[in-house]
């Protein structure tokens, strides 16, 4: 369920790093908790974000939730699919429905994030 090559936050984002670019998304647990997703708001291409700052928001039928940047850097890619098909975030949160790509400015930050096993233990305990 939770890929081992991802790192996770306690706010339920994931990041998959290839080279110096991280692909960011929200976890399956997050989409389950949110329910039917109707809007996804993402930053603009070129925006600079810092780890832990608000990256955007996800809105479900019942509530809005912020998404936090799991890493610092520059937004170099946005998943345009989500503007017209936000429900894909419910269907494939770890794959097709990634949110943004960020060029990492501080790769050591990744050490602060959770492994798949730690994240699963964390959400298990949260319940």
């Amino acid at each position, binding site marked *: 369920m939770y890929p081992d090559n991802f790192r996770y936050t306690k706010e339920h984002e994931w990041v998959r790093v290839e080279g110096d670019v991280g692909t960011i998304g929200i976890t399956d647990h997050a989409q*389950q908790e949110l*329910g*039917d997703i109707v*809007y996804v708001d993402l930053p603009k291409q070129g925006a600079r974000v810092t780890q832990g700052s608000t990256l955007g*928001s996800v*809105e479900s*039928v*019942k509530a*809005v939730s912020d998404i936090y940047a799991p890493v610092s850097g520059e937004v170099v890619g946005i998943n345009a699919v989500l503007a017209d098909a936000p429900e894909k975030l*419910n269907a494939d949160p770890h794959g097709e429905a990634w949110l943004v790509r960020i060029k990492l400015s501080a790769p050591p930050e990744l050490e602060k994030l959770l492994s798949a096993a730690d994240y699963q233990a964390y959400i298990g305990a949260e319940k």
Partner: protein
Amino acid sequence: MAAAPALRATPLNSTHRALGAKLVDFGGWEMPVQYSGILEEHQTVRTAVGLFDVSHMGEIEIRGPMAGALTDFVTTNHAARLSAGQVQYSGLLFEHGGFVDDILVHKVADDHYFLCVNASNQEKDFEQIRAHNRFGAQVDFTSDRYAQLALQGPKARLTLQKLTSVDLAAIRYYWFADGVVAGAPARIAHTGYTGEEGFEIYIPPPDAPRIWNQVLQAGAEFGIRPCGLGARNTLRLEAKMALYGHEIDASISPLEADLDWIVKLDKGEFVGREALQRQKQAGVRRRLVGFEMKGRGIGRDGYEVRIEGVPAGWVTSGSPSPTLNKNIGLCYLPAALAQPGRAIQIVVRGQPVDAVTVETPFYKRAR
């Protein structure tokens, strides 16, 4: 750190868990917010039939020769005009004209009225009614004696009919009958909180899990689904039914809430009447009105509403409307400005987003 108080549970709590429901704290009750998903559950009620556990709702019963007099005195609608077997939506008000609660009054007999009240208000409602009982009626808090299920949707009657010999087609809208459902004594009311055809049944709590399962079996051929409070909220919003704590509360009067029709100022004395009369003479200052988003975003509960950039009111409820495929909501605006067709802006997370006031209800079923 103080320990969180234990949540209250309905007799169906373990049934919901077994079905994989997502449970949330709803006014101190652990209730299912969704099973399969709000959108799917919503559509099921609009097109087939959904089953809701609403056992958290409270019941208060008023008995004795003066039961009608007390019921009429503490409520805004004309309870004295009800026939036995009839149901009426009504308001329970403070002297100052704000809502204690909105309730359903069922007249069982001349000497017996059965009130269905909101879960989080039930103790307050009971105290309010007792405090005004100068008639010597018997007022009983009977929430523990009833579980309540709501079957809602165009196939609700066909589903429930399989489990009872009571002729459901003969129960008119906002009437009820007492009978037997799946072998248990039941009060069967042709009422609901979804804007759809349906029934609300009051049953003994120990029978609730068994009856719940029998209803699901009976409705299987129609595609019945268990539905949670999430869908209940989107359904009631489309039908523009008030939710206590949102459209109405102690600071809001029925005249402001666009509920003039439940206020019968000419019926005689009742709690809150003088305040409402003064308000009516002076004119209400604010009024509830529906809106539709024009720009991208959803106006949610508590968001500021502006007219030509100037703060003018607030959103009481807002959500995507699964039936209309629009983002809808209700808001308070100055009464003089609360007509359909007005351009407004709703401040969605710091950004004003265009919206327009519209006629309500947003959804009305074909009859």
